[in-house]
């Protein structure tokens, strides 16, 4: 397999190099290189050694300016930890994070603070992430205060303008979170993140707590603001349909490692990694004929392995419809390799699961 690899084993940060230049997309704005994050857990093994949980295991990727970069995977895959390390809300155990080429670890307190202004976060739960004692206006104005931007009148004007941008009125600025619906609260969370005019916004499951009809409104709002303000998004989602709709490029994570990383078109039309294949085929599509589609699915076997007791080789091997039990998969961790221009996969048998699998996209009208 290694003899016919089109690109050398991932020495550069995937997605940062030539593809960016060749298709004219933006330069990398946020890069992670060999990022590792280990949490110490309380329990000890039988020899009294502390156990560590490796939540991010050697992750390298680059987010380009102006794109929507998707991080997808199931619970516990490390997507939220990765996002937090990217903003240095969490200190990585090893590896480098660069923002516009600047190593975040080399920044002093003040510099980091200034940098933070340019990177913001929107949280999943619009109920838990807003202080119930503050009014919507105060919530949105607070970041301006913290960063000492403008005087009182200017701050208020900026706040009102921002609220108007997300579709809330001046009268609503005086209300507290409980007076708002879930969708409106998420708008407040978005206004709070965007009021500082950041360059990069990390959206951690921004719509999964909302009703479908409201999800559409919030997605539309995020799209409009992105175009208006020229923002870069890192979009975390467990919902692949939403990621496909919203993101330009997507990284699929499993047990803290990147399984596949590519443009939306390639990932959703021709996934290479067996995990991507099973993840994609598991997404229920709201179209006729779902039951016959489901019957043909490639099902992963069993459950996600524990991060404490992670497999030595490929993390997906114990569940993999292709590689389960194969020596190479059990023994060797596959490197993330560029298999087609702009499509990276970490699999010894990349592409094999695709051949026999049902296409992720069914024909639009299936008589059942």
């Amino acid at each position, binding site marked *: 397999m290694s003899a016919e690899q089109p690109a050398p084993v991932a020495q550069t940060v995937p997605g940062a190099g030539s593809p960016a230049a060749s298709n004219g997309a933006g330069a990398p704005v946020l890069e992670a290189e060999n990022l590792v994050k280990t949490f110490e857990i309380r329990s000890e093994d039988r020899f009294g050694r502390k156990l560590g949980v490796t939540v991010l295991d050697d992750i390298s990727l680059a987010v380009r300016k102006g794109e929507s970069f998707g991080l997808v995977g199931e619970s516990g895959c490390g997507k939220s930890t990765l996002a937090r390390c990217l903003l240095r809300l969490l200190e990585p155990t090893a590896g480098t994070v660069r923002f516009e080429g600047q190593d975040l670890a080399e920044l002093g307190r003040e510099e980091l603070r200034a940098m933070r202004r340019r990177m913001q976060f929107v949280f999943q739960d619009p109920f838990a992430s807003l202080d119930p004692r503050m009014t919507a206006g105060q919530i949105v104005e607070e970041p301006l205060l913290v960063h000492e931007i403008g005087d009182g009148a200017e701050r208020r004007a900026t706040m009102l303008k921002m609220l108007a941008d997300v579709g809330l009125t001046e009268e609503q600025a005086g209300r507290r979170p409980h007076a708002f619906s879930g969708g409106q609260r998420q708008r407040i969370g978005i206004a709070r993140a965007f009021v500082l005019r950041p360059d990069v916004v990390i959206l951690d499951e921004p719509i999964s707590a909302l009703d479908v009809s*409201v999800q559409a409104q919030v997605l539309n709002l995020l799209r409009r603001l992105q175009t208006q303000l020229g923002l870069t998004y890192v979009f975390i989602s*467990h919902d692949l349909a939403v990621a496909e709709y919203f993101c330009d490029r997507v990284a699929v994570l499993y047990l803290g490692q990147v399984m596949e990383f590519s443009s939306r078109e390639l990932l959703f039309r021709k996934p290479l990694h067996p995990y991507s294949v099973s993840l994609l085929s598991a997404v*229920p599509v709201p179209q006729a004929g*779902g039951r016959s589609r489901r019957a043909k699915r490639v099902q992963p076997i069993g459950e996600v392995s524990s991060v404490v007791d992670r497999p030595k080789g490929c993390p997906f091997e114990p569940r993999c419809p292709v590689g389960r039990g194969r020596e190479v998969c059990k023994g060797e961790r596959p490197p993330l390799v560029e298999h087609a221009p702009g499509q990276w996969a970490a699999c010894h048998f990349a592409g094999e699961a695709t051949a026999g699998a049902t296409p992720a996209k069914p024909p639009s009208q299936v008589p059942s």
Partner: protein
Amino acid sequence: MSGPAPMPASPPGDSPGASAQPALSVRNLSTVFESPGRTVHAVRDVSFDMRPTERLGVVGESGSGKSALALSILGLIEPPGRVVGGEIRLGGRDISKLSDRALGAVRGNDIALVLQDPMSALDPVRTIGRQVVDAIAVHEPELRRAAARKRAAELLREVDIPQAERRLDDYPHQYSGGMRQRVAIAMAIAHNPSVLIADEPTTALDVTTQSQVLALLDRLVEQHRTAVILITHNLGIVSDFCDSVAVMYAGRFVETSGVDHIFLSPTHPYSEALLKCVPNPERLAEGPLPAITGFPPDLSQLPHGCSFQPRCPVGKDIPECRGQTPQPHTVEGPSGAAIVECHFAEQRIGEVKV
């Protein structure tokens, strides 16, 4: 029930195969939540039938009355809520007039419930085994402990818990989310209920776990002839699992049909809007998602006429929609019949394309 398009959840008299006894028959069910000066009409005069093995999906936004409907059928509505009218027949037997005690014997035995959060069905400080044994013993008090434990292990095996015998002694936190949901299902099916109501059973789960739970429900339907009501806000799940679907809005079933109909020719403007606001990558070029404007109505102050009218792209300014409550219309679409509560049902059935 036979025929190419099963029309299960249909009002009395309309159902073509009415000879077979339905597993569940709900007539004119109404539930309110009362507080001083305010009455919320959560379920408004809902009627439907389900045959054995039928899989009915109930979809709608939060606050549409989906969960209130489930709790009303199970007799689990608590004050200030109250079932104010209607009849619920389970295998021909009217359970809506039963005493709490008699209903307790039916619940868990003939009809059971699975909730979104499996932890709400499990006690965190007792072992899985004890809880499953209890679920069995409630309705079989004469069963000896050892026999009940053996049956509990069988149940866990049935829901694919590996090393079931050994894992009986684990506590809920030692199980993953998907396994807990399967245990909750195991407890619900301990007595082979003829009807299982599953309220968002897969919403808290990852997609790969989701399909495992659906596969488990499949087996349940096939092996025990259980009828399943699947309450969900996810239309994809409806397509994946159900054979009939009811779209709920403001406490009513506004469109009821076989499952393909709703995806191929949704007739009620609300059903169409619900489908269209799901992100569809193929529509990326068409600009913003067609979101539904406005909010679901306040169920204590329902608008005159059609309850969807204030948000409806079709009926917004039409006097008929504002003035008259639409009656159920039975329409025949390309993928079978549907019952639609819309003044424009007949007109729309030929037009709507998704």
